[in-house]
């Protein structure tokens, strides 16, 4: 597994574990599909929970009010791009 594939897998596992998603495996999460609303169907509390998980695991602090935060959470691929760019651990 390449480094990119490993990070994608790690992020999917983080989402499933952090958000206590039942009956969902990493394979069920499409890299390009929306995470919120349709697609995986996450909600606003999940967004806050994911923000905290990114801070704990990768040292990335997001501004909840910033316009680009919404963009980072659009899909797994967008989240992965954010982590690759801004991770500090």
């Amino acid at each position, binding site marked *: 597994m390449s480094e990119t594939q490993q990070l994608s897998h790690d992020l999917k596992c983080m989402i499933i574990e952090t*958000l206590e998603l*039942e009956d969902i495996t990493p394979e069920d999460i499409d890299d390009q599909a929306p995470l919120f609303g349709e697609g995986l169907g996450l*909600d606003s509390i*999940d967004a*806050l*929970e994911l923000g905290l998980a990114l801070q704990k695991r990768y040292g990335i602090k997001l501004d909840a009010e910033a316009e680009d935060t919404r963009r980072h959470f659009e899909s797994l691929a967008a989240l992965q791009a954010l982590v690759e760019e801004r991770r500090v651990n």
Partner: protein
Amino acid sequence: MQQIRLGDWLGWCPDSIDRLQHPQLLTTDKPGQSLPAMLRRRLDTSGRAVCDLLARLDPDARYPLIHASRHGDASRTLDMLKGLVNQEPPSPTRFSMSVHNATLGVHSIANDHHRPLQALSASGNELEAMFWEAAGYLAQGQSSVVVAFSEGELPEDYVGHTTHPGFPCAIAMRLTLNQGPCLMNSNTDGSEGAPHPFDVIRWLSGSTTTLAGRQQQWRLEQL
């Protein structure tokens, strides 16, 4: 005030605990089938059971609902408090669900319920509080009120400091003025403890004839 009657009831306790073998007692270790998975994940086992009982006793989402729990989701709340002591930021999900009306909130979303909802905690007087509140709704003209009483897992740190059945359990009753046995109450001498949900299950299953609280005791009477 008109006499409150017990229209119907259902209870839940884990499969491993069921010694009563009563048909109105649901015994599954995985309650929550009335909830979609994305909502179910937010509640602990007893919260999920409460939603299942409410969905069965109020299938058309027509009645006011009252949920009482003396301790609520004490395990998650205590974990969150311990985290705060260690300077850890609390989980937004756990924080948002740590309010006492979280279970009814999840149930109302899942069932599109728009009637009154009320969450109670009364330091061991939950039954009195539930019956009084239900009497109020019935006096206002509601045809039925469904009341649920539950306890989740008690954190190890609290064991021995409070009355608790020792396992998660839940009971729900549909109360009305015109059907079923009458709920007769009388004063106690104050020597009894605080009944928990499994005491209510035992009473309604016929294991005991009366249910005694701190101030009142109840029995069912067929008219």
